[in-house]
């Protein structure tokens, strides 16, 4: 798989990361060598093998639907870089 700057730029956009021009060139080169490396898995026969997404046989855990103590609004907002009243404040989402 060839990783050019176009691919990296597209994926960086999907990941919501703005790259500087110098970063883009370097990352494309490094990602190419990493992708070449992980391409090695393609030579392994995996027919009939089940995927392991989790090592334990886990199931969903639910708690009783009861009220219990939770963070206060002030506590929840105390780390916000920008707060307005009782809300997180962000730039305009829709033009």
């Amino acid at each position: 798989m060839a990783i050019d700057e176009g691919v990296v730029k597209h994926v960086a956009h999907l990941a919501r990361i703005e790259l500087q021009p110098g970063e883009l060139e370097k990352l494309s080169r490094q990602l190419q060598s990493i992708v070449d490396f992980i391409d090695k898995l393609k030579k392994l026969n995996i027919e009939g093998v089940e995927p392991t997404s989790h090592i334990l046989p886990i199931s969903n855990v639910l708690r009783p639907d009861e009220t219990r103590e939770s963070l206060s609004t002030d506590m929840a907002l105390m780390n916000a870089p920008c707060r307005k009243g009782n809300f997180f404040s962000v730039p305009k989402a829709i033009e």
Partner: protein
Amino acid sequence: MMELNKLTAHELIEKLSREEITSDQIVSCLNKRINAIDSEVKAYARVEDGLTSWPVNQLASYNNNRQTGKPANRQTDLQGIPISIKDNICADGLNTECCSKILEGFKPPYDATVIKRLKEAGAIISPLKTNMDEFAFGSSTENSCFGSTRNPWNLECVPGGSSGGSAACVAADEAIWALGSDTGGSIRQPASFCGVVGLKPTYGRVSRYGLIAFASSLDQIGPITKDIRDSALLMNVIAGHDPNDSTSVNIDIPDYTKSLEMDIKGIKIALPKEYFPEGLDPEVKDIINEAINKLKSQGASFENVSLPHTEYAVEVYYIIATAEASSNLARFDGVQYGFRVQDARNKTRNLIEMYKKTRGEGFGEEAKRRIILGTFILSHGYYDAYYLRALKVRTLIKQDFDHVFKGFDCIVTPTSPTPAFKIGEKVEDPLKMYLSDIYTISANLSGIPAISIPCGFTKKGLPVGLQILAKPFNEEMLFRVAYAYEQSTEWHKMKPKL
């Protein structure tokens, strides 16, 4: 006064219970040591503004508040014993920034479950968090926004990573013991590089609630200590089921210190040939072979085995770990916590642009590399080719271990193919850095517990670690073999000259 910072936790517990010392004496010894050498070792993040803020008010009550009589099942009394914590484990009110600019200033409003348990046991949480690779992305602690930690045995070398700060502060007696996290070797490899004991528990044994997630199917919190008894003692406190972590397993926790009373006569140990290749560093090879002979002389038997899919482990790991990381790190967007790009009007016209600029500036180089790689792997058209394929090979790697454990009690390998490398040596070549985890990542992929213990030094005076791996939820076997070995050697008593 005696240098109490040099002692182990169990030695201090003894002294406290005989009322020979007080907790504030321990803390002042630690402060003195940190003041004297941390400017060289740099084991702690933000050391410049943390030293005086130990929770000393609580100390007075700790001093005369030790439990009397024997606790019910397990030894879990840590009254007045200080502990240092990696910067990715949330502690109420303490800066917890994963050594990343994007979490600048973040103070969690709650305790991780491990911290809660430590506090309940009476432990004193160090106000200074230990340095780490940003978001635990790395094997050298060079990827920290606070700068590199140095190896206490040789300040020109890395301490390993990503829990390099935790390993270095324990090795340098700037801490009694510490907590780290291990996603692909991040406890064991630095423990090996710094000559201390590092345990990655079985996946699901220790709650991950409050551990800032890197790769959720691989991450575990574990102890970094000066000896095996401390490791067992700390596990007695932090292990166990937690309703706040749906992947924590509800099975009984034994008293791990009991495992230290058993010998290893008749224990069957496997040596996987893939971990002893032709090109293995000859010094590491000799030191490991000596350790094997030591275990043989205590009655353990050894046999060569094969874990045939070992050669694919690094590839599988970097696919799964980056995929999970790219998803976990989506939460850092400049809205709820941490850094947001300066919002000088017109600079960020809308929300998406704010995200992109914040993440572009807030994440370091390795974090960006991994998020972008993980996003690529999960993106349309590549998911099956990379991610799904890696999950299938993960099954094969796990089956290799299942097969070996049918006939053996544990597996012994080097923790790392080399001793600590030089600072800067691998920084420009991510692939080379990734390969330094080659012997540790399989334990994470298969969920099994593994420990690294000091087993010797190279001619240049760098520590080498022996890794022991066991069946899921059989940490007791690790402690049993590790302690038998430790009893017959002096490596754990060696101190770096600083």
